[in-house]
């Protein structure tokens, strides 16, 4: 097979600019081969090089005294959780593959992020998924949503990782370009951190896992273009299919192998497969690497060197083994019946050399691919649409006349409705560690001895085995509408709400991983959204003491219908010190006092928290107005106060106000506890808001003023709790009492009542009904 001639057209098809091509000539001192052109094109795609985002990512706070491996150093960041233990976590997107083939696209997304985690030497212990789709009235959206959820379920369940938290938003802007962000968290001991580096000249390089096929050719490049009919069609020919069964075996075998100490470096073959893994491991170690493609197991006949290097076949790993210890690799991989092959060696040349059929098809200075990769400071311009957003006022917007209907509608709105249709398809309890299941503000998982990979041989005797338990809380957040309406505030709110959810669970933040889902960075207005939200996220992470330990950028999220709402998804992980601190969102017992921490309505906001709100979208059909203001100090003080109260004992439930405002928060507190299948535990509440003056009724009930948390205590401790909140610097008022069969809200404007059975029905079954219009 002859390689095509290098023409400017071919260079363009590889998404390389003439300037980038010049840079390649300079690095090589000659024309690239066809395979080299392919290698540069994927390595310099946005997906692998972050060429448009690197300058922005540099502004993130990435360190704390707990961060052991920081953002960008390795495949995932690592954070200390005490007692010699650490967690590795990261989020990754699989948006475009999921648009093309929802089930496999989402499934392989899970596979990819799980590999990123065990590559670090950590045992994957839980996953989380953050999803965005168009509106469910569209059958194509239902197909995508159903397929994505089934794909995540298939991969995660079979692998045996609990998917225990996440979020799903539905908005027209995601039609045709769904977002599928998946997160994985793993556990390891400090002395178990593995490196993705090709260390030790002369060390053999092993390929383990299934054979390479033509699947996902140049998937990284595909992710770095707008989603068009044409680009999708190209990708359809080569859809990646995930094999979670294989991944489970590869994971167990790798962890077992790492424990032997025979591994000098390990790297998964994710985006850009063999190319990226060889290049990066050599660049990290400052060595060279030589691989012989004839030794790479191949699934399809007659694959070219270009295809083998660019394939994204799943579940493959590259392992650099200490010379002389090859037998251990063979023994362990044979035990697990896994294919392996010795494909090359570490060298001291600094070159990544690829040979095929006796010919050298690529020879590139590994370090330079990374260090000389282009960086662009894109033009940013404030979008025109913001004028109208800022001009929006409540004048002419009649106050609510029917709060009863409005609350029921909001609870049934798919974005707010219970996501049980999703998470009941995920095995969220496998591994026997799930303490708080999906359905509360944050999920809680315990870490115990069997969460940790096998101990390195010989080391076990030195450091005593961990026999205790640790508790980790997780949540993910991002309200894309807010970010669209004000990217800076929206970015801040995503982080702050995540931190607030953790506080509600009784947890203190450890770190953040983010996934920046945006449109085409060449569009200055879209780049401005990116730049502003990065600034917001960075500021919030600094203020709340949650460093960013890693993440992922997914640009070019636009279909022919236009760009998505900018969606910088934030996943935050926190530590819960004691089991007694674990707090859930639902009301516990009749007679308990309901209190509000925070300002009922932000009266300094001219929109009283209604800008960008779910209420405005659902009831008035408008996605506009500046979102609620997010003062980071107020947030920090509130979270710390809530934690102090929880640590002091006596807080029986805590739920924050987010989409749908106070009324939705109260309703959820009444109806969100589930004891078992078809066995909700519902309990009513009597709320008196008549003392709150000045605000509009819709703003009081459904406004989304930030920094508010509804808590309950026993009646006897309520007064003391209010006094303590005041000392801790947080406004707090009494809202009412738990009990009865209805949520009753009394305001200055009147009294309304909702039987909890009806609220529950609207909220719990909404997604199932929308997904089955035929049976509705």
């Amino acid at each position, binding site marked *: 097979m002859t390689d095509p001639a290098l023409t400017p057209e071919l260079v363009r098809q590889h998404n390389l600019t003439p300037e980038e091509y010049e840079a390649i000539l300079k690095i090589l001192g000659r024309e690239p081969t066809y395979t080299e052109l392919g290698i540069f094109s994927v390595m310099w795609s946005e997906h692998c090089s972050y060429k448009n985002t690197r300058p922005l990512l540099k502004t993130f706070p990435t360190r704390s005294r707990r961060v052991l491996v920081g953002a960008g150093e390795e495949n995932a960041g690592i954070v200390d959780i005490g007692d010699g233990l650490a967690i590795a976590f990261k989020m990754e997107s699989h948006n475009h593959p999921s648009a093309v083939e929802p089930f496999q696209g989402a499934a392989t997304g899970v596979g990819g992020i799980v590999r990123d985690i065990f590559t670090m030497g950590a045992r994957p212990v839980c996953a989380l998924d953050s999803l965005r789709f168009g509106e469910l009235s569209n059958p194509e959206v239902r197909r995508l949503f159903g397929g994505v959820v089934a794909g995540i*379920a298939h991969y995660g369940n*079979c692998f045996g990782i609990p998917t225990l938290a996440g979020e799903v938003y539905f908005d027209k802007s995601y039609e045709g370009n769904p977002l599928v962000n998946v997160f994985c968290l793993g556990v390891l001991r400090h002395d178990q951190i593995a490196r993705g580096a090709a260390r030790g000249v002369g060390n053999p390089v092993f390929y383990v896992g299934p054979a390479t096929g033509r699947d996902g050719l140049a998937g990284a490049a595909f992710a770095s273009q707008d989603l068009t009919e044409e680009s999708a069609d190209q990708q359809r020919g080569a859809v990646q299919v995930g094999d979670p069964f294989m991944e489970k075996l590869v994971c167990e075998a790798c962890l077992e192998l790492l424990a032997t100490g025979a591994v000098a470096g390990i790297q998964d073959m994710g985006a850009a497969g063999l190319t990226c893994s060889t290049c990066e491991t050599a660049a990290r170690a400052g060595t060279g690497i030589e691989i012989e493609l004839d030794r790479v197991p191949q699934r399809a006949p007659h694959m070219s060197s270009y295809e083998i290097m660019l394939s994204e076949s799943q579940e493959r790993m590259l392992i650099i083994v200490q010379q002389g210890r090859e037998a251990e690799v063979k023994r362990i991989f044979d035990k697990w019946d896994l294919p392996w092959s010795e494909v090359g060696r570490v060298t001291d040349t600094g070159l990544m050399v690829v040979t095929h059929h006796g010919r050298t098809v690529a020879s590139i200075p590994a370090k330079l691919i990374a260090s000389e990769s282009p960086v662009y400071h894109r033009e940013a311009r404030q979008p025109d649409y913001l004028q109208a957003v800022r001009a929006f006022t409540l004048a002419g917007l009649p106050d609510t006349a029917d709060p009863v209907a409005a609350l029921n509608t909001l609870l049934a709105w798919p974005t707010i409705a219970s996501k049980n249709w999703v998470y*009941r398809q*995920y*095995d969220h309890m496998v591994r*026997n560690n799930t*303490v708080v299941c999906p359905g509360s503000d944050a999920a809680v998982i315990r870490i115990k001895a*069997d969460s940790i990979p096998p101990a390195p041989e010989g080391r076990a005797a030195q450091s005593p085995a961990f026999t205790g338990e640790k508790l980790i809380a997780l949540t993910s957040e991002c309200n894309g509408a807010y970010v669209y309406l004000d990217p800076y505030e929206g970015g801040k709110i995503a982080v702050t709400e995540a931190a607030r959810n953790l506080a509600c669970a009784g947890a203190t933040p450890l770190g953040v991983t983010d996934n920046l889902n945006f449109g085409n960075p060449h569009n200055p207005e879209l780049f401005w959204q990116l730049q502003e939200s990065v600034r917001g996220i960075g500021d919030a992470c600094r203020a709340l003491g949650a460093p960013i330990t890693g993440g992922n950028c997914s640009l070019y999220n636009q279909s022919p219908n236009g760009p998505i709402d900018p969606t910088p998804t934030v996943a935050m992980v926190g530590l819960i010190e004691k*089991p007694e601190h674990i707090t859930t969102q639902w009301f516990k017992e009749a007679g308990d006092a309901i209190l509000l921490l925070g300002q009922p309505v932000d009266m300094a906001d001219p929109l009283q928290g209604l800008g960008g709100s779910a209420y405005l979208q659902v009831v008035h059909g408008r996605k506009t107005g500046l979102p609620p203001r997010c003062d980071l100090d107020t947030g920090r003080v509130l979270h710390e106060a809530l934690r102090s109260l929880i640590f002091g004992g006596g807080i029986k439930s805590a739920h924050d106000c987010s989409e749908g405002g106070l009324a939705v928060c109260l309703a959820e507190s009444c109806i969100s506890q589930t004891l078992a299948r078809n066995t909700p535990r519902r309990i009513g509440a009597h709320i008196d808001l008549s003392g709150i003056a000045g605000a509009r009724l819709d703003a009081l009930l459904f406004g989304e003023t930030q920094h508010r948390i509804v808590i309950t205590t026993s009646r006897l401790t309520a007064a003391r709790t209010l006094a303590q909140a005041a000392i801790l610097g947080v406004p707090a008022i009494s809202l009412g009492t738990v009990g009865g069969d209805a949520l009753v809200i009394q305001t200055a404007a009147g009294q309304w009542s909702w039987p909890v059975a009806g609220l529950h029905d609207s909220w719990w079954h909404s997604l199932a009904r929308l997904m089955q219009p035929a049976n509705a």
Partner: protein
Amino acid sequence: MHFAILQFPASNCDQDAVHAIRVLGHSAELVWHKDTSLGAAEAVIVPGGFSYGDYLRTGAIARFSPVMQAVRRFAAEGGLVLGICNGFQILCEAGLLPGALIRNRSLQFRCEHVHLKTATRDSPFTRRIPPDTLLRIPVAHGEGCYYADAPTLARLRAQDQILWQYCTADGVLEDYASPNGSVEGIAGICNERRNVAGLMPHPERACEPLVGSTDGRWILESMIP
């Protein structure tokens, strides 16, 4: 009491079973699917997971593993064998239990807590369950719909082999209480000799207050003399 917990490629509740047994104060060891002996085991648990990816049919490939020959002998000698979830599927495929488990009627995987009624306390898997006590235990499966033909069902009933049924919080057998559409709400059964049992729910995930239920202990403790 010493338990053997089988480990197939892609078993993923094997560690959970080991942990649960240790929580109960007993010992457990993993036995690799290629092993031909169960060692010093006094009881066997075939754990949940997706052995061999559940490819072809759940449990179809695992059933042919060398270790299953050992389990067969162990059962033939009267040893206690409990199959949980995928383990139940494997035991049915292996013919150690009658019937089969097919796709959930919803066609979707279901993970949630369910209520179980113990249909008979006359078995080494149910004998310690307090009378008239419903169990609250998680399920997590895509293919847990129990099927057996009419003569087999009649035999199961006649010989009191149905051990657990899905029920409502009030203990009523209702269709909607079942996560999978099993015939007669069957969640678990035993063989005629009453030393081999299988169930779809996960008792090993319900042995500690921290994870939300301790009802699974009744089942595992029943196995301990």
